[in-house]
């Protein structure tokens, strides 16, 4: 990866946005590098769209600052706009335009000269697989085609930062797959992609990193930043006579950092301390009188991580 790609493209420092009494964003800070796909996940109303709108120069932060490629979003929005591509959650389309005209229009709006404009249109049509529909009116396109067209429109001007608000929603798996493929291509080109979505299973396939946001604040997963070892699912047989507090027993084992119920009776997820030996932990559990019937390594899904972060995460 190039040095440029590793230089932070986006730096947010203590961003704050208020809507009346509501803190839509509260002291949000992060840095994102080029050539990475970063998921922005959180419950509805968490502040995802607000954060994307601030970075897209559509909303002024009440406090803090954000820079894109070193340019202050609040002070030099017109410069920032030449560095970003933005896909809102409900992107409008000019229904009376043809596909190619639409791309031509936004290429012009980005001030592209005839050569780059032609290249952009060709690339966008190829990436969206709409080449054979270039002469079709947008109103004649299917929902998936429109979504792809909206998406590739955001690539005009070869942005260094792509801000995507729910680009995968309301699409069939094929269209989702095609859009994820285009997102991945942008990463390879060195673009930083910040993408919000509720389709976490899809998002985790392409993301290098995830920002969890809740109540306008970025939150960390429990244990994040403290160093976390592997996680194991432990299923225990029915409690033996006199046995109480299996969870407490598991938590007290050497090398165990945290214990969470994993749904179902006597099923737990153990998160081990960094460097802990799983075999030693298992032996300790057996020695402690627990009848272990299942022991397997687990990787928490993004959805599980989100739930864990929202329930027990720290700001």
């Amino acid at each position, binding site marked *: 990866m190039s040095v440029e790609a590793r230089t932070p493209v986006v730096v947010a420092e203590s961003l704050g946005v208020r809507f009346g009494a509501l803190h839509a964003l509260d002291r949000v800070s992060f840095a994102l590098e080029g050539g990475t796909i970063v998921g922005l996940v959180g419950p509805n109303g968490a502040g995802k769209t607000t954060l994307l709108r601030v970075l*897209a*120069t559509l909303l002024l932060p009440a406090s803090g600052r954000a820079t894109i490629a070193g340019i202050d979003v609040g002070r030099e929005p017109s410069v920032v706009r030449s560095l970003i591509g933005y896909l809102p959650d409900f992107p*409008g389309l000019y229904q009376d335009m043809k596909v190619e005209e639409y791309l031509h229009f*936004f290429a012009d709006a*980005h001030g592209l000269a005839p050569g780059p404009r032609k290249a952009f249109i060709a690339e966008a049509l190829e990436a969206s697989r709409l080449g054979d529909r270039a002469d079709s009116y947008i109103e004649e396109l299917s929902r998936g085609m429109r979504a792809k067209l909206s998406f590739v429109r955001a690539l005009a001007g070869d942005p260094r930062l792509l801000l995507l608000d729910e680009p995968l929603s309301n699409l069939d798996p094929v269209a989702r797959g095609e859009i994820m493929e285009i997102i991945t291509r942008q990463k390879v080109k060195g673009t930083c992609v910040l993408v919000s979505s509720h389709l976490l299973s899809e998002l985790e396939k392409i993301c290098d990193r995830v920002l969890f946001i809740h109540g306008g604040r970025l939150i960390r997963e429990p244990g994040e930043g403290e160093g976390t070892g592997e996680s194991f699912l432990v299923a225990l047989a029915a409690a033996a006579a006199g046995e109480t507090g299996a969870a407490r027993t598991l938590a007290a084992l050497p090398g165990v950092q945290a214990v969470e119920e994993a749904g179902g009776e006597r099923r737990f997820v153990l998160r081990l301390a960094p460097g802990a030996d799983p075999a030693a932990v298992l032996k300790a559990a057996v020695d402690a009188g627990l009848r272990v019937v299942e022991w397997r390594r687990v990787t928490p899904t993004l959805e599980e991580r989100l739930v864990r972060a929202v329930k027990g995460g720290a700001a």
Partner: protein
Amino acid sequence: MSLPMLRNPILVREVDHRMRDNRTYAIPMVYILVLGLVTLAAYIIIVQTADPTYRAAEGWVIGKTIFHFIAFTQMGLIILLVPSVSAGAVTGERDKGTLPLLLVTPMPRLTIVVGKFLASVLYVLLLVSTSIPFAALSFGFGGTDLRLLGLTYGCLVATALSMAAMGLAVSTVMRRTVPAVLLAYGLVAALIVGSGVAEIALHIFFPDFETILFVYLNPFTPLVITIYEGVEMAQAHVYWWITPAIQLALALVCLSIAGLRMLSLRD
């Protein structure tokens, strides 16, 4: 128009959009139909009411009457049509969900304002130009001259510019199209009706005030003045050019408001 202005993507898009809209062709058709009926009505009225001592109304009277009928009708049509066209210029983008897409492009915000304004004005000029054959008809009868023609069309264009700019300013202030159009028509009504009421009040409270003041805001005023031109208007200190001058100033103010609003507009 400078070259960059001709390359204005918003203007190109708006013109394309209008050319694909059936209303773009239907409205001029209705416009021409109305003007045709008005011309015919003016001819019939003047011939029927001609002085019986003459065998027929004199040609110059017919020509002048037709011309004034056309001018008043056009002014009315411009006042009726332009606010509805321009007041939805920005709110329409918001309604469609395309405004954020425009706002995040590096395109200068003033390009959007100028493009929207010119698109509205060009459409109105298209309408106004369709009346030229009718004006030519009045020339055939006599009674009009190039000065009156230029003066009248100048007033029509000044009104179109001010109405388009006012509608655009309203469109940048309001969030939705329907309230924006209603507000634009409210402002037009204030200019026409409100100025008349204010004028009456002025002369009631200041009976010694001998000339007119507030009715200069009314777009019809210069057309009325031109009818009575030569009937000692100058002695009464009444001048036709004041209204278009006010309208051009109003257009500049409204365009400035629209420009400033666009600069600060986030979405």
